[in-house]
């Protein structure tokens, strides 16, 4: 690891000021992506600003028809939160299948979505449940948050504060995990919401995306059969040692049908 200056501010204002003052500052949340990246010398920030000392950035609360998850809320807390399990069991189940228990005991939702790994799980929930991301500067619609491979709509120095998930009528997440890392080869969140059905895919493309043809078919009939013949094109999908683009396209259909079956049955 290259040397850096560590800061542990106690307020958001102090964190923003430390970021602005740094030649090349980076915030630290659960460290489950950033620390391995630093150890491999793939990043060389001048300053690391730990958000762990700021009160009020973690925790889950109900706000009207939405569940609001603070940026520093760990995956294990989302998985075990009674509030989340009651209102959006699909979100608790998604958090519970991230990595392993020790990753879930440290990693946070803010770090996960800011990192925007194409194979991460939370992006499927942010897009699939039509969430809203609140930062220190503005709110960003879930649909507009992920912009590319490890790319988000976040600007330089912008800190995620929370993610607000509207409670759907029913939803489920189905994931085909990489057997070693547990990251999603393909993961699909299907949700029936007040404004229609949403189908969001992670793992398959450069960033999480929706499948419009499945959404309209499920709007007419919320059954696995309704999307049996909806083909997803492999064009532009990820291709790596784990799976070809064709295989991923096929898995999108399989995972979507499993998610619909689970949501419709539960």
């Amino acid at each position, binding site marked *: 690891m290259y040397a850096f200056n560590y800061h542990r501010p106690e307020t958001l204002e102090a964190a923003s000021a430390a970021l602005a003052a740094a030649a090349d500052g980076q915030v630290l949340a659960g460290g489950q992506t950033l620390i391995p990246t630093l150890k*491999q010398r793939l990043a060389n920030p001048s300053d690391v600003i*730990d958000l762990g000392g700021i009160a009020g950035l973690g925790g889950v609360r109900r706000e009207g028809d939405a569940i609001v998850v603070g940026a520093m809320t760990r995956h294990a807390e989302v998985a075990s939160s009674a509030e989340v399990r009651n209102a959006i069991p699909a979100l608790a189940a998604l958090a519970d299948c991230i990595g392993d228990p020790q990753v879930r*005991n440290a990693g946070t939702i803010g770090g996960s979505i800011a990192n925007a790994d194409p194979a991460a799980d939370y992006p499927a929930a942010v897009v699939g449940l039509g969430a809203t991301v609140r930062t220190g500067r503005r709110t960003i619609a879930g649909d507009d948050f992920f912009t590319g491979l490890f790319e988000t709509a976040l600007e330089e120095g912008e800190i995620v504060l929370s993610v607000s998930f509207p409670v759907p009528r029913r939803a489920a997440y189905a994931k085909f995990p990489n057997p070693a890392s547990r990251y999603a080869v393909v993961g699909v969140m299907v949700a029936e919401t007040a404004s229609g059905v949403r189908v969001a895919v992670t793992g398959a493309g450069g960033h999480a995306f929706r499948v419009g043809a499945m959404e309209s078919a499920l709007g007419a009939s919320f059954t696995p059969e309704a999307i049996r013949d909806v083909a997803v094109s492999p064009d532009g999908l990820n291709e790596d040692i784990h799976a070809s683009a064709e295989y991923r396209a096929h898995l999108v259909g399989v995972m979507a049908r499993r998610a619909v079956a689970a949501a419709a049955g539960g």
Partner: protein
Amino acid sequence: MPVDISLNVNGKAVSAQVEDRTLLVELLRENLRLTGTHVGCDTSQCGACVVHVDGRSVKACTMLARQAQGAAVTTIEGLAEDGKLHPMQEAFRENHGLQCGFCTPGMVMSALDLVARNPDPSGAEVREWLEGNLCRCTGYHNIVKSILAGANAMRGGS
């Protein structure tokens, strides 16, 4: 430039000088000479370095020492009392839950976090929980057996 940090390790207040980039596992092994916490992969995948920080099991190779300022850390050295092994350690010994023993401290620390949440886990739940703990020797069977026996002993069973 080294800075002073203070924390509680295995029930004792300690302070040490660390660099900003020092990992928690380096603080434990090199500054405090608690070499029971192992480094198997250093890429956050094997779980040999698992310790408890404020009651949660985490990978000590994936946390900065300075993040543990003021925290309560428990390592494998903190389990035995008055020279008597903790029931989970004893269960690993009884059930041949280790061969080379390299993964064992992480296995035991991880298992104790499971039992704290779920005092009576099933074999399947133990296997699922061990997702982040790799063993190159045993094939896991006796590790699972040990954890079930350890959990049973901790519930007061025989």
